[in-house]
């Protein structure tokens, strides 16, 4: 199989397969969580705080007072990576074209120079976060295979995409095929790795806010 054939497979059956696994996995994992249900809380609620869970979904995106200073690398690295990744993913014109082909939805893209900057920022932030994980005693103790895997799965599409866009390698078709395959691997493994936090954190934040609200803690 040469680069072009690989590219054709990645764009067609490969993409369908990856999306299928991703959707199936997200449903499976969500059911696994939600089907456990909640234990009845026999204590009467301290306060009636409608919307506490929903508010926490948003409010938890900001660092609580004092935390930015305590863990600047974790917060700043985290923001730069997530924003850079999202901008690159959703506002690079060829990506929007692809999404339009699959979902029929589209929106205006950003100029390539901005996308380029966002990609570089995300890559640098990821490298900084990796070093932080290797150096910080807490993170090193907590980290296991799943953390390194999640990092590699996320880094690969950024690196291959950057290489493809800048024509770093002779064989453009192959580089692009590798880029698409790396995304497909990311999609297929997302539900079964730590990357699933992109879905489950909404549940976790909601429960957290709801539980705190019942206890009379403002969110």
């Amino acid at each position, binding site marked *: 199989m040469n680069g072009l054939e690989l590219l054709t497979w990645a764009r067609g059956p490969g993409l369908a397969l990856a999306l299928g696994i991703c959707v199936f996995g997200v449903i499976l994992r969500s059911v696994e969580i939600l089907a456990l249900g909640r234990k009845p809380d026999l204590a009467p609620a301290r306060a009636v705080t409608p919307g506490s869970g929903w508010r926490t979904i948003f409010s938890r995106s900001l660092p609580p007072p004092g935390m930015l200073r305590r863990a600047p690398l974790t917060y700043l690295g985290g923001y730069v990576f997530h924003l850079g990744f999202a901008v690159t993913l959703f506002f690079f014109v060829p990506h929007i074209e692809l999404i339009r082909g699959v979902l029929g939805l589209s929106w205006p893209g950003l100029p390539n120079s901005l996308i380029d900057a966002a990609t570089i920022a995300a890559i640098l932030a990821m490298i900084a976060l990796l070093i932080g994980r290797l150096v910080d005693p807490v993170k090193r103790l907590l980290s296991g295979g799943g953390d390194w895997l999640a990092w590699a799965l996320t880094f690969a599409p950024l690196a291959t995409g950057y290489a493809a866009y800048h024509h770093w390698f002779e064989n453009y078709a192959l580089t692009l095929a590798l880029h698409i395959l790396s995304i497909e691997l990311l999609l297929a493994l997302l539900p079964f790795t730590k990357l699933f936090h992109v879905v489950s954190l909404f549940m976790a934040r909601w429960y*957290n806010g709801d539980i705190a609200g019942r206890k009379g803690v403002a969110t």
Partner: protein
Amino acid sequence: MSASFERGINAFKEVIDAPVASFFSSCVHCGLCAETCLFYTETGDPQYAPIRKLEPLRRTWFQEYTLLGRLAKLAGLSKPVTDEELAAWSPLVYDSCSMCGRCSMVCPVGNDLTLMIRKMREGMAADGHAPEGLITATTRAVTSGSPAGVKWVTVQAQTTPMKPPTAASRSALPTSRANSSAASSRRPRNSRSSA
């Protein structure tokens, strides 16, 4: 597997519900919860990271309530939770958490770690790995009604109103004056509680 250990693991399984499963699914090992925990900030020892205190509970969740974990267990690839491990975790779960709730307010993915530590204690208690003093106090509370072991006669003596001293007893006891003033000062409390 000892009976108490089985009870402990069953209690672990019982306390795991949808919130706990969503919390464990979401943790990205960012370490921010440690930065809020006084046991870590005061010692610098990473084992006090709040999420670390929950490791046996996390593995129970993964092995029992996820497809991947169950497959890994069937294939013999997962590390089962052991009685010795729970014994080793007891100081982390009990002595190294004041239930202050700071970690739960900071975790960026929204994990309520305090709630999970509280739930884990239920399993640890069922397993007999609660601290000695707590076990004794609980046993006393169940058998005698008082965690501190105060006997019923003592309570009765404290709550029964004293009779006002008679003239005879007053002359018989040199400390009668002190007694009578103590009795009178106690009386209003009794009348309030019976009201």
